[in-house]
């Protein structure tokens, strides 16, 4: 959020009001607004990534900057879920990005020809996973391990059914729970990566 306000500050005279208006548009109270902001941000990141954008965070920021600039005139008369407006702006941003000259992309190497830098990145990622794994609770660790467990007597799906029964959950609820624990790991890794950036 800080990055968005800094960019808006550099352009508009009353950026702080616009950003407050944006949050007010997203939620009735600060808690709701912050939650909705994160939801929209994640949706934007996934949207740009799934459409092949090279730098989803930059494009997501651009969407927030544009919406924040326009919120004063749009929000008072806008009918419906604000997320639809964000998506409409995102489509424009994506279309503009596509019109830019394409950068050359190298084909992905197969592992037997791994260049050292890719291997080092993987090692760093595994180290980050190890660090973040330690921050999970023992139960969270156990659920993740058992979710991916395959034994000679039971397949992965049979193990998951058994785990769901033990936890008193449906298999789908277990699936969602596991995804959220994985999300915790992923956010930890992103925080570590952000700290390491110069």
């Amino acid at each position, binding site marked *: 959020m800080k990055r968005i306000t800094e960019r808006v500050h550099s352009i508009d005279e009353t950026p702080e009001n616009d950003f407050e208006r944006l949050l007010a548009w997203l939620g009735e109270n600060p808690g709701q607004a912050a939650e909705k902001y994160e939801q929209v941000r994640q949706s934007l990141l996934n949207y740009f990534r799934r459409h092949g954008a090279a730098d989803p965070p930059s494009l997501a920021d651009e969407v927030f900057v544009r919406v924040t600039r326009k919120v004063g005139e749009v929000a008072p008369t806008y009918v419906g879920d604000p997320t639809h407006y964000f998506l409409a702006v995102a489509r424009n941003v994506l279309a503009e990005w596509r019109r830019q000259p394409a950068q050359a992309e190298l084909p992905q190497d197969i592992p037997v020809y791994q260049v050292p830098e890719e291997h080092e990145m993987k090692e760093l990622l595994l180290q980050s996973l190890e660090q973040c794994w330690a921050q999970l609770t023992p139960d969270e660790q156990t659920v993740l*391990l058992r979710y991916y467990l395959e034994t000679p007597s039971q397949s992965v799906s049979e193990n998951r059914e058994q785990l769901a029964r033990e936890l008193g959950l449906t298999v789908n609820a277990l699936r969602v729970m596991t995804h959220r624990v994985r999300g915790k790991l992923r956010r930890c890794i992103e925080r570590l990566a952000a700290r390491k950036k110069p």
Partner: protein
Amino acid sequence: MLDFNKQATEIRRFLLGRLPEESAEHLEERIFADRDFAEEVEIAESELIADYHENNLGPEDRALFERKYLTSPANIQAVDYESAFREFIRGKLKEEDPLHRGRLGLMATSPAGSEAKVSPAQPEHSKHGLRFSWLRRFFVTRPLLANLTAAVSLLLLLAVGFWKLSAYLTRPPAGDPAQTERRAIEGELARLNTAPSTSLQVTPAVTVDLQPVQRGVGAMSRLRIGDFNRSSFIRLRLGLIQSGPVNYRAAFLDDRRNELFVVEDLTAQNTPEGPQVQLLVPAKYFKPGDYQISLSALNRGGSYEEVNSYALRVIEAKQ
């Protein structure tokens, strides 16, 4: 907790780019507006990536996946993360057996409306007391025989344990990512070269005729591949001096004679140019360099014997 099971097929088609544009836009609007649905799409995407790594996608879906997920840095990062996570979990599962971690307590992250139900453990001594009374009687009434039996059993156990340990230490690591990827490549090559319908649907961009290498004779065959045709296929026609109704195996080696991948269950065909073994290989598997193809035939003993060796030089071509 909402169950989006019925939309699983539609979500997968969306992720692979198979939905019509209007349906895809409608689904995207739902992702933005419905938090639970957005989460479901994220879960479905990680399962799709997992299916790719486990080679569980059909040829069409695999091609669509690679076209979409292996052509942008952000998507490649997502695919790589899934691979690293799976390798990490495999490593953890080797370190410990989660079934012996103890009971699961109540999960603070459980979805709303559900709690873990834990059954109390039974007191251990009451279970064991009745079970092993016969063993105690055996040791009390026949001490010499019992001790001899115990000593022999212990020696046998040590011998088996030592054998298993040496087998474990010398086997290739199951979770080796290079091995996993090699298996995926060989799976794709097997489908391409042994399933008649698959090979018929593929039109190779280039055909290369290779003759057996003879010491000091002839120049190395050359193949030009550039970035512009990396998604295409190469047909290799390996010439034979003579052929028989046997199965052949082609092993691809690099210039240091490291085995890269193998294609099995190939058969020879009679052509106007003589007997040949033909095979299709995706161009993306050929980086610039020198390759050797070792062709072996299955003998009556059930093992492969090399019959010919072929050399190939791959050169980077500019469009």
